[in-house]
């Protein structure tokens, strides 16, 4: 009994979301971390019994507000697969544009929170200031800042006009300039490096073995990005997954920072090649059969399993979110780090507990 035991969460100022970690600390070094979940569990998967497959779009969007667009897109793709619907090309491009915008806003938001976790308040403010431009784009194009509700089975609900595209391009230029200005802080600042380099190291082997996903996996040197599946319009848009080899909190931060710039580029190219045509296909009938598919969310790979029996209501909807996959690596990362680095490491996987628990 010579250890400090302290409850970290569920309500904790540095945790944006309720997760509990029971930390056993010895001289401020974490020896053991036991997670407890359930503070956000709502039981969304079972709402398929209450909402029909169209209404479920709005439900899965709210699995997580930050990556809502990707959840809805993945779900719609699943239903479209089951119903054999061909989504118009323009809709595919628009989905990519909005999803990449979501990635940008999610990463910017995370970068801010991450900075806050090691007490760098001004960087937090700066990232969130930059992020507001993306929120404006969302609001102007989709009508809402966070949960955009643009997806529907068979396509998208909103369209982009050429003038809007031009305006978005302008805004993204601004975002890029401001990001470049802060790049050196995030990647080279002495104090930031001191707080992140070597913290929460996940080796390449461990990352693979423990099933890490997204930037957590790529930060450990494994180039695995679900966008390589070339879904929607990504078959026309070339990109290279961002990889860092450090496997520590710094590497994961760097991956996300670089991905933000990459996504800006993707949006620009998608807007440049935006084809004309319809934005949604007609939907007839009801889904039937089972399918499993994946998309890359800001936090990593998200898998949807959908089983339908030909009625209005789905038989089973199963969502495996990226954070769900990143929790086991997190529990492996925590022992051995300092107490002060716990928030940094916890945030470095970009935990989205509402995704995890649904």
């Amino acid at each position, binding site marked *: 009994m010579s250890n400090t035991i302290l409850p970290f969460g569920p309500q904790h100022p540095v945790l944006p979301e309720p997760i509990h970690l029971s930390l056993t600390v010895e001289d401020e070094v974490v020896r053991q971390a036991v997670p407890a979940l359930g503070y956000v*569990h709502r039981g969304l998967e079972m709402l398929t019994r209450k909402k029909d497959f169209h209404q479920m779009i709005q439900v899965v969007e709210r699995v997580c507000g930050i990556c809502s667009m990707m959840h809805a897109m993945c779900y719609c793709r699943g239903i479209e697969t089951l119903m054999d619907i061909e989504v118009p090309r323009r809709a595919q491009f628009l989905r990519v544009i909005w999803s990449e915008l979501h990635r940008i806003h999610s990463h910017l938001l995370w970068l*801010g929170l991450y900075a806050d976790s090691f007490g760098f308040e001004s960087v937090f403010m700066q990232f969130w200031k930059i992020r507001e431009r993306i929120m404006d784009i969302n609001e102007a194009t989709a009508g809402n800042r966070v949960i955009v509700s643009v997806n529907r089975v068979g396509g998208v609900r909103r369209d982009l006009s050429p003038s809007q595209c031009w305006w978005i391009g302008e805004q993204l230029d601004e975002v890029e300039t401001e990001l470049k200005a802060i790049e050196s802080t995030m990647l080279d600042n002495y104090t930031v490096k001191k707080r992140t380099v070597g913290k929460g190291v996940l080796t390449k082997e461990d990352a693979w073995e423990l099933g890490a996903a997204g930037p957590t996996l790529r930060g450990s040197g494994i180039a695995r990005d679900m966008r390589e599946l070339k879904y929607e319009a990504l078959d026309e848009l070339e990109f290279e997954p961002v990889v860092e080899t450090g496997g520590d909190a710094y590497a994961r931060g760097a991956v996300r920072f670089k991905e933000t710039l990459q996504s800006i580029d993707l949006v620009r190219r998608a807007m440049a090649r935006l084809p004309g045509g319809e934005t949604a296909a007609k939907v007839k009938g009801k889904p039937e059969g089972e399918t499993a598919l994946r998309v890359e969310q800001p936090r990593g790979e998200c898998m949807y399993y959908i089983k339908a029996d030909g009625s209005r209501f789905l038989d089973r909807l199963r969502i495996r979110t990226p954070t769900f996959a990143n929790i086991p690596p997190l529990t492996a990362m925590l022992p051995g780090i300092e107490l002060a680095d716990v928030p940094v490491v916890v945030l470095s996987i970009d935990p989205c507990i509402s995704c995890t628990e649904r």
Partner: protein
Amino acid sequence: MFKKIMERSRIKSPWLVHYDCGSCNGCDIETLACLTPLYDVERFGVLNIGNPKHADVLIVTGSVNTRNRHVLEQIHRQMPSPKIVIAVGSCGLSGGIFKEAYNVVGGVDRVIPVDVYVPGCPARPEAIIDGVVEGLSVLADKQRRPDAANGAVAVDHTNSEILYESR
């Protein structure tokens, strides 16, 4: 005179604690966005203090579930009076789109008394600022009638008929 300064100060320095009570993060990030340069609620003296023992305003986002209701109750209990509760977003108000889910108890007002309701899904930062400003007038009221501050928990039962019918 001191009393007057204190009365004025109370509405000039609301420190808030934010609890994410099973929200989808939409309202959370909008609440956080209020603190950031573009909305900057520190103009009104608002600090996101994070510790219920220091806070005057409890901002709750998200629907209450069976596990976090105790946490919510406890945070509310640990805040010294006078205090106000602001429920943010459809989930916090009534359970929103999740009100039929099996692990959702409902809105925040089922567990603790809510003073201000901020609708929206997610609630926009502007709406949250409105909520805080509105909350301050409630706080000023409470100070005039301190008994009301620790009143019994008023629990809302609208929508309860939809909730457990299937079980």
